[in-house]
């Protein structure tokens, strides 16, 4: 079995705030293999974005990070800043949520796409431009030859996101990390962008990490899923298994809280709010909101990430996989 493209081990992130130490990520292990898509699912405060930022060295200063993050076998966390920048730029591409603020409004898209390509590979301006046109075509922007000289504001939201994807692909990275990349887009455009990424992945064999809170996006494109809550992974499994046999009460609750067309009965909402990173409960982070609370240890002991099925692990003392009612109502 070949080595995973990206492997994160025991990643921990904390930041000292005025009110104390906030533990944002508390021991996360992740791997992504070539050609596979890993969806990292969580709500605000779950630590999903911070995990990726910390693993790739993109956290703001003042944030404490520990653990390892191996990209193609090399630990990004031990690299010096300049080498990290070029290595990361060469082998990882990023797509963020808001293309308007991620793109420089004063530069043509062609130059921006070509920028990374040029600096990292020592190519000429002409090469970079050719590559930009090629990429714009690959991401489905019509009239690429002309549009390469357009500015970001001249594109629509969906198009801009495609430009972001083109930028991320410029150096043919082995890994793409997308953080809520389609959240701000309309449903129809979102579907197109997801199709595009899936297509490119099939063609190029890129590994993709897709961070999202939207389970339907996960259903549409993920191979494997990691569900995060309170800075930890609480469930990890192949995507079909997750939807058919969710093991963790949080996953089940998340699946059950989605409105279903045709069913107007009250939704199975999860009461309360996500945990406060300043004051994480001693046991399972989900315990205060858990509708099940099936084991005496839940409140005081942190459950380990234990196997509950084939390639399926859940961090709960109460893993009743047989009881799972995917997407239905929960009493």
């Amino acid at each position, binding site marked *: 079995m070949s080595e995973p493209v990206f492997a994160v081990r025991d990643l921990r992130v904390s*930041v000292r*705030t*005025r*009110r104390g130490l*906030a533990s*944002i990520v508390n021991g996360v292990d992740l791997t992504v293999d070539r050609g596979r898509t890993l969806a990292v699912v969580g709500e*605000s*405060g779950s630590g999903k974005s*911070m995990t990726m930022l910390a693993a790739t060295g993109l956290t*703001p*200063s*003042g944030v404490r990070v520990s653990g390892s993050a191996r990209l193609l076998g090399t630990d990004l966390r031990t690299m010096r800043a300049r080498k990290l920048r070029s290595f990361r730029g060469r082998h990882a591409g990023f797509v963020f949520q808001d293309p308007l603020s991620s793109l420089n409004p004063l530069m043509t898209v062609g130059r921006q796409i070509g920028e990374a390509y040029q600096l990292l590979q020592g190519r000429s301006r002409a090469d970079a431009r050719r590559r930009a046109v090629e990429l714009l075509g690959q991401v489905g922007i019509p009239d690429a030859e002309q549009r390469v000289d357009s500015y970001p504001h001249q594109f629509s939201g969906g198009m801009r996101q495609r430009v972001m994807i083109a930028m991320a692909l410029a150096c043919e990275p082995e890994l793409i990390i997308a953080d809520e990349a389609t959240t701000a887009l309309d449903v129809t455009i979102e579907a197109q962008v997801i199709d595009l990424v899936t297509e490119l992945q099939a063609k190029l064999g890129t590994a993709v990490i897709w961070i999202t809170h939207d389970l339907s996006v996960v259903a549409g494109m993920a191979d494997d899923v990691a569900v995060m809550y309170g800075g930890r992974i609480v469930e990890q499994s192949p995507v079909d298994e997750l939807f058919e046999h969710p093991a963790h009460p949080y996953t089940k609750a998340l699946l059950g809280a989605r409105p279903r067309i045709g069913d107007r*009965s*009250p939704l*199975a*909402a999860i*009461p*309360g*709010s*996500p*945990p*406060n*990173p*300043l004051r994480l409960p001693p046991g399972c982070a989900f315990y*205060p909101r858990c*509708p099940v609370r099936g084991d005496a240890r839940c409140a005081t002991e942190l459950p380990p990430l234990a196997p509950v099925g084939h390639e399926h692990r859940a961090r709960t003392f109460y893993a009743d996989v047989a009881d799972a009612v995917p997407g239905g*109502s929960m*009493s």
Partner: protein
Amino acid sequence: MTTPSAQFTEPVADPATAATGDAAAGRPSAGSARDVARVLVRRPLALGGLLVICLMVVLALFGTQIAPNGENDVDVSQMLTGPSAKHWFGTDELGRDVLSRVIIAAHASLEVSVVSVGAALVAGVLLGLLAGYYGRFADSFIMRCMDVLFAFPVMLLAIAIVAVLGAGISSAMIAIAVVYTPIFARITRASVLSVREEVYVRAAVSIGVPDREIIGRHILPNVAGPIIVQTSLSLGFAILTEAALSFLGLGVQPPQPSWGAMLYDARGFVEQAWWMAVFPGLAIVLTVLSFNLVGDALRDVLDPRRRTQLEAAGRP
């Protein structure tokens, strides 16, 4: 089937997003008095500045009691003597104790500064609020007037006004107030323009809150930061302006002492009696510097954008 529960442990905020969310969005964070105190304590320079300002205020209020001599007590036997045990700052050409004069002059300088900046603040903020909130014609008219005032170099305009009104402390105050109004108007207007677009202002409109209440309760509190910062800076510059006017004989009139007037008197004696110019000069420099240091520290607390930069750099 459980209804969404009102069960609720404690209002929980996500500090990681609350702190960075607000700051990252560039919103005025709640720069409270506690924050101000905290920042000042961690910056010795700003704290020093604050102490100096307090000292100057004390001198301004109680100068005549504190000073060893009266401002016009003449001792003919002691003309133009250097700093000594009896006269720490020496004496001037009339035998007056320079230390006492410097102390007592604080009153005039600070009075002019506070009154004129106070007036500029009130007028400028009012004009800025109206221009920013109502826009269009009011905005164009008001800001063009401010632009006209801005076009003149500060001193030139101040001199012109005093020339029209006649030299004297009141004229100086009026001149400085007029000259400093535009900066307050401009800063206020800029802040109002951005706050006006905030959703909570639209929400207030949707509730039916009358304009004056929107301006007073929603807009003004949220633009206060930059205005406060500018106030502290302007207080410093006003002292300089007053000193310049008095130096030119256009501000505070003898026999009332002011630091600028003392510089004016000292100009003929610079070689023989350096202390006549140096000490009032130091008083000016020290006071203006202090206002600037405090103003900078306040800006770091109250200006939302600067706050974001500092938080990112990990500074308190």
